């Protein structure tokens, strides 16, 4: 029986493969997925490194990572004529639990050349006002007194402070907010667009997004964990610094497999 089943399977696969081969010449749309990989200035980072591997940031502080998860949304494919295909959705990249490291786009994308592929780090303000059961279930919310919505990132760890004492840090990125309370105000947007650049889609594609975690602490603001470590959510200037550093070199295009 097993052999028969195996034989049937092989025959079916052969037919399917033949079909695909024929389609290759006329493939008009393709499945795309985004694979998020992480590094510290080139050294690969995975959850196996958490609470274990030490890294030195631009300011010279030695740190370890305890937890890391962040939100991306609205993947956009832009054609030369300016036409945009916007994928209205989000993905929580949970490095701690190895969830969401690969984001499969539900909608097939027309094959062809795109002058830019981009996504939003966090949520734009409109999306941030929505209610998302998956993110609520992860308790990824931002308190109402800070404007509500969701964290863009939770990056927790520990570092050695100037007195050589281990101290926690909570590099939590949210929408920058002032005047916490019933009527908070928002000094500037702190979500940002990540441009991966031109990509030509010829077949089903996996697009690697390389995330250099060291950059969160580097450019243009050399991050001093001794002064900015915890309780950063209500600190709008810290949020703006995170935004500025995030925009400058954290994310980049890696390998495209198709």
């Amino acid at each position, binding site marked *: *029986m097993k052999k028969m089943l195996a034989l049937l399977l092989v025959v079916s696969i052969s037919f399917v493969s033949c079909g695909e081969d024929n389609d290759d010449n006329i493939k008009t749309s393709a499945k795309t997925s985004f694979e998020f990989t992480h590094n510290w200035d080139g050294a690969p980072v995975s959850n196996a490194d958490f609470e274990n591997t030490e890294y030195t940031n631009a300011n010279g502080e030695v740190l370890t990572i305890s*937890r890391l998860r962040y939100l991306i949304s609205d993947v956009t494919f832009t054609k030369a004529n300016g036409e945009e295909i916007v994928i209205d959705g989000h993905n929580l990249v949970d490095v701690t639990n190895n969830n969401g490291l690969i984001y499969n786009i539900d909608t097939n994308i027309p094959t062809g050349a795109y002058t830019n592929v981009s996504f939003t780090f966090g949520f734009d303000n409109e999306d941030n006002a929505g209610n998302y059961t998956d993110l609520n*279930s*992860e308790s990824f*919310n931002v*308190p109402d007194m800070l404007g509500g919505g969701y964290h863009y990132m939770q990056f927790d760890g520990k570092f050695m402070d100037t007195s050589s004492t281990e101290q*926690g840090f909570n590099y939590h990125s949210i929408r920058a907010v002032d005047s916490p309370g019933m009527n908070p105000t928002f000094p500037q947007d702190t979500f940002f667009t990540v441009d991966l650049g031109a990509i030509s889609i010829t077949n089903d594609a996996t697009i690697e997004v390389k995330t250099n975690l060291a950059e969160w602490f580097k450019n243009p603001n050399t991050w001093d964990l001794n002064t900015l470590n915890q*309780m950063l*959510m*209500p600190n709008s200037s810290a949020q703006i610094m995170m935004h500025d550093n995030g925009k400058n070199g954290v994310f980049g295009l890696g390998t495209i497999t198709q």
Partner: protein
Amino acid sequence: MKKWTVHIVCFAFLILASCSDDENQVQGYEPTPLPLDIPPLFEQNIIAPVIPSGNPQTVEGVALGKKLFFDKILSGDETQACATCHAPQNAFSDNTPFSEGIDGNLGTRNSMPLFNLAWNYNERFAWDGKELSLERQAQEPVQNPIEMHSNWDDVIDKLSNHSEYPELFRKAFNTTTITKELTTRAIAQFERTLISSNSKFDKFSLGQATLTPEEQNGLDVFMDEERGDCFHCHGNPNNPLWTDNIFHNNGLDATFTDLGLGGVSGDPSDNGKFKSPSIRNLAFTAPYMHDGRFSTLEEVINHYSEGLQDSPTIDPLMKKVEQGGVQLTDQDKADLKAFLLTLSDSSFLTNPDFTN
């Protein structure tokens, strides 16, 4: 060809064997599905509960599970039931730091309250996460020598020779062949029905109640990263579970006699980590923490305010560790307690579906 023939014969035999099991099964009988009654706040805000495909909820399965949960037949000398240490009046916990087993021995962990368990998405149960499903968890206390101190062979014998259970198992699982697995499946079905969602705060969330100024300030303390910062581990009004169901070292000890998650994972970086319990029903679940060390909510709040102990695995979410904690004012402490108590659901304790 010979092998194929053998396979075909085996397959036919299996079919015949399943058909010939008619002594214990009624052909065509199916227990009645009983989907969980999901509260609107849960439906609106969080993803669906986890129901294992191999153990769907049924009217008959839940009824059997309830009877088993309250039946002392599961313990060695028939003096204790699951409900002995998981009593409805204590939100299915008990009121002592450690529970006494049938031989008078004490355990080393506080009995965990039981509610909203189907929404524990990672399906790691117990303070240290050692139980990977509700079904598996239910196997453990029965045979634990310091708890119910029985053994499953004896329990199955007693259930099989009981005047009612074989028929109840037939109704629940369409077989009178009682097994450990079916027994714990029934208990897990009952446990999944233990849903608590009717506290004052739930009514507030639904626009059916108002908070006092003290309770509102307590919520603000809870949600304020510069004061309580409780929400990063215990959730927020958008998540009616009020726990992240994750394991943290919340600064109870500088050194560990109980390794918690580290004792299960073997990873030293997990030492001293225990599951965040839900803060629902705190009015009924004292004492608190994995070892029941705090008798009152005031003691719990004081711990986070000025009692933190540093250690290599303390969670980085713990604030101002060098000062012992977040240094709440007396007013904020009192208001925080007032808010916490709004999450207590007294109707859960008296729901006739959950009591014997």
